[in-house]
């Protein structure tokens, strides 16, 4: 079942000599429970694709669908995008971006508050989620009392709070060591498997690629199927 899709997406920044084509006729379809990686060098358009699919910016042309519903057509929004982000999408970033004046539990509760879920029900769900991510003993800690990996797990818990159809992650392991990076990627796999969410991860980290169902590469605004390095090597030998 389709969770998120972009069709023939185009996005250009600047004009004349300064013009940069960030998305060049990009199409991507992500199914529920699928974990997808977007690889590519800086400036290749990965983040633009992620923010476009995340309904944070409009493409110049192309269509975005969420759960099969067409929500963006070119520069036109066909639905309440803030509401869709609130109810259907979860975001994780390179930095955890926790709210510094909220405890671990409260950082997750924010997502519930935004969705109008409050009181005991919200606390119970947030606590459950933190337990699921191995943070049950950190619920009252403030962000500056947590390690980088723990902070990132809180950010993931926050992204999962409203059981999103899609989780979009922008280099979530960039600030973590290899062990913690692997942990986070395994966590995304569990999320996709247990909760049926689609996960799209922008990453530079080749060490974790085995955690993905599908890997795409971007270069100069174009999307390609990933060709593993060992495949190139095999071709050369042949």
């Amino acid at each position, binding site marked *: 079942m389709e969770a998120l899709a972009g069709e023939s997406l185009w996005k250009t920044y600047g004009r004349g000599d300064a013009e940069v084509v960030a998305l060049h006729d990009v199409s991507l379809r992500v199914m529920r429970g699928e974990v997808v990686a977007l690889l590519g060098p800086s400036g290749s358009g990965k*983040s633009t694709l992620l923010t476009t699919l995340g309904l944070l910016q409009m493409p110049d042309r192309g269509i975005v669908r969420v759960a099969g519903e067409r929500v963006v057509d070119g520069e036109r929004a066909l639905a309440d995008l*803030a509401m869709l982000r*609130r109810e259907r999408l979860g975001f994780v*970033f390179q*930095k955890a971006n926790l709210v510094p004046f909220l405890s671990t539990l*409260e950082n997750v509760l*924010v997502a519930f*508050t935004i969705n109008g879920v409050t009181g005991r029900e919200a606390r119970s769900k947030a606590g459950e989620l933190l337990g699921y991510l191995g943070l049950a003993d950190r619920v009252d800690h403030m962000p500056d009392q947590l390690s980088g990996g723990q902070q990132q797990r809180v950010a993931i818990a926050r992204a999962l709070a409203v059981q999103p159809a899609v989780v979009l992650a922008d280099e979530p392991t960039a600030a973590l060591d290899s062990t913690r990076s692997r942990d986070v990627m395994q966590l995304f796999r569990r999320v996709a498997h247990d909760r049926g969410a689609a996960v799209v991860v922008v990453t530079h980290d080749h060490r974790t690629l085995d955690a993905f169902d599908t890997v795409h590469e971007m270069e100069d605004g174009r999307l390609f199927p990933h060709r593993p390095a060992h495949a190139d090597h095999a071709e050369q030998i042949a």
Partner: protein
Amino acid sequence: MNLALRDLRHQLRRFVATSVGLGLLLAVVLAMGGIYRGLVEDATVLVDRMNADLWLVQRGTRGPFAERSTLPSSVESRARVVPGVLQAASFTTTTLQPIHRGRVLRTSLVGLAWPDERGQLLPIVAGRAIERAHRELVVDRTLDLPLDEVVELGDETYRVVGITEGLVASGGDGLAFATQSDVARIQAYLVPEARRMRGSGDQAQPISAVMVHVAPGERVEDVKRRFEAWSDTAVYTTEEQRSFLLEGVVDKARRQIGLFRALLAVVSSIVVTLVVFNMTVAKTREIALLKLMGAKLRLIVSMIVQQSLALSLLAYGVALVVAQVAFPLFPRRVIVGPQELAGVLVLSIAIGLVASLAAVRRALGIPATTILAS
């Protein structure tokens, strides 16, 4: 979960320090209003206490509360026989500055129509009213004279037999009360005009005004009209006397205080605006995050407005505490009534709301994608 409160809790010291600073500003706003009320109260307390229907004063003057008024005491007996008059009593007041125990004792001395008036209606908080026709004084607490203190006025000494509270003249000087004959004697000794009247052959004691009480069933306007026919006096109602006082003595102070308060309100608004704006700028990432997560703008706006209001209301609380603790120490009365308190509360809320506008505008302009760049 209240985000505004959580944020304030996180930066509690800064928030409280700012509120205290702003509270001191609001306390000054409150004090200015209280000082004005005190001025009005002080200026009118005597005319209100005397409770006369009409005041007969020297022609060409606006009465003893606004300027010097001198009448021959015979006006009192003439007034008594005017139709519609229930009672007429002379009123004498004079400002004195005797030196007592090495300090200047500035006071307004008021004559009581002995034996009918002995000060029994005055708010005496210690001692008693006047019981002898001569050489006794009832003084206000602000004069700082103890009971049984002997004060030299003119060529005689007078003993303090009673202390009142809250009776001061329009200039803020404490009032002192003696029998009219004593006041006349002191005036005759100290005041040149009184001496001149005596020297001109008028042996009666000069008075400042005559208080007239209108008989039941008579209309004050009718009796007033009868006095208006007199060529040597002017006649005013108590309300007119109050107006002269307020227009003359208090009006400039009122305008001055009003302008000062307006200035303080503007300064307070600017302070709150800057504080709330800076608090919002410091939360740019968090606001961007909320937007990215799809938070309704209402949530963000209410967080900013709540913080601004919390700041203003806490400052108002500080101002109330300052008012309780510091205002009684002021040399002049600072009267802060419910109306004043409500007014400053409304002002605080208005400042909070207005101050949040710039911050709200700023917050609404923060793009959700800011969080991706940070």
